[in-house]
């Protein structure tokens, strides 16, 4: 075959390959962008008071301006950040600790890991109902405390749900996300094996030194990546704070839905604006978090 003919053949193959790539991706990307893109695009347009189904044609930032002057929105931003940050930090610490314990539990390893992962398929709404039955004023812990003579009655039990500090919401997120982060950390531990740990031990490193300088750096990438995802989820989950949260301030997803279902249709652009704010914040957090995680994994890059 002449070089020219071979070149033509290669090009033909390459083009056929491009066609395959496009044909494989197109149905997925078209449907995802059609649905998700419409949702986000319309939320943006309607938050600006315009769009295919709105009367006005002049985009305005009025809804955003009203939100910035709205104390409920501002405390909602604070509460949402508090809930997401607190639950993510707790879940990361407890998840990592759990992974270390599970990694050392060599006997019945499969069953223990399966038990640990049992709440993963549980929908958030069930977790919220369960936490309510556990931490509510007439919940299980309050009952046990009363029976033990520690409490006068349900009213004496501290408010852990519908409360100002969103303790119930945070507990629910930690309960769910520590398992996720723990499973990721455990997978990292198992794939890394014990050779490095053994080497450090042979060199005389103490248990704490091995943990600090060998084990934790090994699992850090996975833990940070999982924590970023956990943060995004706890920032945006709707049904958990809807069931376990107080009425004022409510977290951003609940506030968005409340404005969305407001009988006053003038609140709709505000609902859309809150939706846009949530979306932008989550995307920013994940982008920044992923970048920071990459940096933390390679300290030499700083």
């Amino acid at each position: 075959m002449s070089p020219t003919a071979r070149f033509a053949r290669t090009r033909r193959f390459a083009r056929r390959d491009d066609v395959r790539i496009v044909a494989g991706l197109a149905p997925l990307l078209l449907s995802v962008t059609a649905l998700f893109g419409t949702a986000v695009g319309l939320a943006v347009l309607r938050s600006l008071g315009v769009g295919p189904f709105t009367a006005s044609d002049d985009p305005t930032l009025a809804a955003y301006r009203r939100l910035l002057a709205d104390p409920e929105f501002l405390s909602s931003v604070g509460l949402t950040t508090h809930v997401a940050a607190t639950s993510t930090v707790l879940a990361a610490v407890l998840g990592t600790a759990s992974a270390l314990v599970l990694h050392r539990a060599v006997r019945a390893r499969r069953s223990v890991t399966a038990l640990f992962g049992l709440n993963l398929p549980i929908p958030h709404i069930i977790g919220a109902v369960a936490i309510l039955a556990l931490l509510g004023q007439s919940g299980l812990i309050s009952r046990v405390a009363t029976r033990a003579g520690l409490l006068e009655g349900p009213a004496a039990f501290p408010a852990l749900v519908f409360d100002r500090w969103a303790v119930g919401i945070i507990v629910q997120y930690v309960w769910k996300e520590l398992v996720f982060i723990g499973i990721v950390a455990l997978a990292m531990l198992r794939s890394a094996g014990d050779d490095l740990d053994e080497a450090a031990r042979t060199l005389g490193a103490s248990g704490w030194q091995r943990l600090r300088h060998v084990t934790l750096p090994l699992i850090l990438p996975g833990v940070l990546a999982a924590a970023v995802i956990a943060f995004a989820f706890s920032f945006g989950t709707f049904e958990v704070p809807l069931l376990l949260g107080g009425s004022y301030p409510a977290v951003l997803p609940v506030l968005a839905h409340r404005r969305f279902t407001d009988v006053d249709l003038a609140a709709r652009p505000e609902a859309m604006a809150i939706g846009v704010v949530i979306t932008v914040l989550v995307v920013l957090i994940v982008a920044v978090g992923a970048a920071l995680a990459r940096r933390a994994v390679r300290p030499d890059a700083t």
Partner: protein
Amino acid sequence: MTAPAAPAAPAARAGTPHPAGPPIPVRPGRGGWGWTLAAWALGAALLLPFVPLVLASVADGYFHPQVLPERLSLRAWSLVLAPGSASWAALGDTILVAVLVTVVSLLLAVPAGRVLGTRRFRGRRAVEVVLLLPVLVPTIAVAIGIHVVFLRLGLDGGRTGVVLVHLIPATPYVALLSAGVFANLDVELESQARSLGARWWQVLWHVTTPLVAPGLMVAALLGFLVSWGQYALTLVIGGGQVVTLPILLFAAASGGDLSVTAATALFHGLPAVALLVVASRVLGAAPNLALGATR
């Protein structure tokens, strides 16, 4: 972009977790019964929130400060499990929606997953980001954004609309998981089969399918579970007309009958757990790992 069918083999596989390694030998001071007991205690502690649900579901008048129910009763369970009850109807709708979501997700996601997992091309990163966004962006923002379109198209308040919006978080997620499955596929095996004279459908049926089927089953299972637990999208688009189990459970929780709420919660949760347990039996630890990344 010139090499035909250039597989991203070693590079793509480098990031994927190893399969379970060789058994770790038990050494003194490590892997003793102490750690195993601690691990069991940890697992048991995570089950604590389910304890009041189980107790309340079999109690007759479960009032404060009863810890163990004073009178046992199957009232709540017989209400939930009664033929023609709201829970059975909700179970039917939840399964119907989740199965449709799973099937459509697989149809869209598997071809894309194959491309993402086995090919290198410009813009692959961008495609992955586009797929990550619907997984990460809160569903309530998506729901209130798209509601008006569904209203105009008459898709609000119906199961079709609910299936369509469930696709938003489920399909990209299934696609990303499928990409991971195909990244582990050794495409050399396919070319070997082809060079031995197998037709494309023989390669597909005898080589590719057996290699990717377990992984794709995990992806399908997780797509199913994403739909199974979906609340915000169903609430906004279903508008109270489509009563899936999460919607029914929230209504029960707002109702005030703790025993019925608890039984409904268990009725909703147990199939999901059973599904995962069966899947882990068949497929190993993979479902657990990927499941965490769902809302």
